[in-house]
């Protein structure tokens, strides 16, 4: 499979600079007394080509953080720098357009860039091939299983030809076996494309399986409490002892964080 993408020696990507950089970012939902401080002074960076996993309890502001980076919402305070990089995002749900075929959904990612129709179609077929859905281009999203839809969503994100891939618990709803396979696929794609990935999950093993770093977010307000480097050799296996050991340490830290709220 040859990559249908441009060469990654673009001038928009300066070497050494992080791909995504958050400086003292805060987000308050609502106003005044009723305002909810979802993120408090978060500073974080994702290096060029780095795979960063973000962990945190439910409601701690992980989705909020990704929305801010994707430009879906703007921070109340602080700065987010992406230096003009193209950003793709995958949601927890597949978020496919039900009125379009699978192939047309993937093509939507290339519409804005003004790629000609013929080329869009060939490229969409290639991206579907990458996620092993070559023969399904003419199906409708609802005809596919949950795991397949999520792969279409991944193909669509890849088709954006982005430099940064934001993923919000993308495999949360999948069964363990499909998830394991998709981890391997994602790792392969990340490597081949030199993507910078910010991957949100509440599954500690998944974070250790995938990440170069695992960032731990506290709850209410969301803050970065710890940043664990993971230096295990790749490919890793979710069920391996090494992964389990690091995951155990991180889970311990996560427990402390959660208990802080109980008292």
């Amino acid at each position, binding site marked *: 499979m040859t990559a249908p993408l441009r060469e990654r020696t673009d001038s928009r990507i300066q070497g050494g600079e992080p791909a995504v950089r958050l400086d003292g970012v805060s987000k308050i939902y609502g106003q005044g007394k009723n305002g909810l401080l979802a993120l408090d002074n978060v500073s974080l960076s994702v290096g060029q080509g780095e795979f960063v996993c973000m962990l945190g309890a439910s409601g701690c502001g992980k989705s909020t953080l990704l*929305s801010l980076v*994707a*430009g*879906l919402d703007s921070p109340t305070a602080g700065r987010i720098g992406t230096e003009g990089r193209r*950003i*793709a*995002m995958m*949601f927890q*749900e597949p*978020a*496919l*357009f*039900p*009125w*379009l075929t699978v192939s047309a959904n993937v093509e*939507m*990612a290339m*519409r*804005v*860039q003004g790629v000609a129709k013929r080329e869009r179609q060939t490229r969409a077929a290639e991206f579907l091939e990458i996620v*092993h*859905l070559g023969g399904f281009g003419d199906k*409708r*999203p*609802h*005809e*596919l*299983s*949950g*795991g*397949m839809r999520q792969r279409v969503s991944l193909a*669509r994100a890849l088709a*954006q030809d982005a430099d940064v891939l934001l993923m919000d618990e993308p495999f949360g709803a999948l069964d363990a*076996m*499909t998830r394991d*396979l998709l981890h*391997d*696929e994602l790792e*392969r794609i990340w490597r081949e494309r030199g993507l910078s990935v910010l991957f949100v999950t509440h599954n500690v093993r998944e974070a250790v399986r995938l990440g170069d770093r695992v960032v731990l977010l506290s709850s209410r307000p969301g803050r970065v409490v710890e940043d664990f480097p993971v230096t295990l050799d790749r*490919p890793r*296996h979710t069920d*391996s002892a090494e992964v389990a050991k690091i995951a155990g340490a991180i889970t311990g830290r996560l427990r402390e964080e959660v208990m802080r709220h109980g008292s």
Partner: protein
Amino acid sequence: MAVDQATPDTHARQLAGLDALELGGGTRGGLAPRIWGRVWPMVLAVGMVVAIWQAVVWAGFWPDYVFAGPAEVVPVLGDRLTSGEYWEAIGVTMRRAVTGFAVSVLVGLVLGALVSRIRVLRAAFGSLITGLQTMPSIAWFPLAILLFGLTESAITFVVILGAAPSIANGLIGGVDYTPPILLRAGHVLGFRRLQLYRHVILPASLPSFLAGLKQGWAFAWRSLMAGELVVIIAHQSSLGERLYYDRELADSAGLLATMIVILIIGIGVDLLFETADNSLRRRWGLQQVRN
């Protein structure tokens, strides 16, 4: 190193296997059983209505010449449906219905698009459009006749006032209830403003718009019948006008025959909309579980 390390090829095969397992074979029944499944309840319903009708006639609340029974109406209906004159009347009515509805769709689309898009217009006209729907169309006729005289324009005017608000409302509702996740997906894919509207919001509104069209048709058809009863235009026979003269001449069987024709046309067009709606739901995977 782990021994069970998967090669890309075994990966692809495992994924394909899982996919095949998850994709149960969904099949639709054949055409004939599906049509039969639709038709027999209708036949049953018609049979029951005719039976009740006959029972009321036999009960003798009214004399025969005031309330005719099925046995008298069916031959009259047959007579009329074989006369060219009657078909001309049907033709006039249908022409008015189609043109009136077509203009309503146009007006509804433009109105709905503007109101759903522009905040000031929404504040100004949003509730007015809903209010217009509650206005009985017959109440517009005095004004329409003042403005246009006893002409077809008066009828068309009222048909549009009856149908366009529903159609506009259907579009506005669809725009308002576009799933936020699809808006976010569209935004992330780089669509903004008009492009987002065209590629995401409008298509997402289609089911609601279709429901608006269906309701708009019902209102258009009612307004048209009211109009044809009130605005009698010389030398232009129409279904409403036939109804009017049948009553004048106390031709009970003829009156009921024409009412049946009006009912059948209304139901027929409604079925067209339902078919369109069903096929859209099937393609989008929005079907309800049937019990």
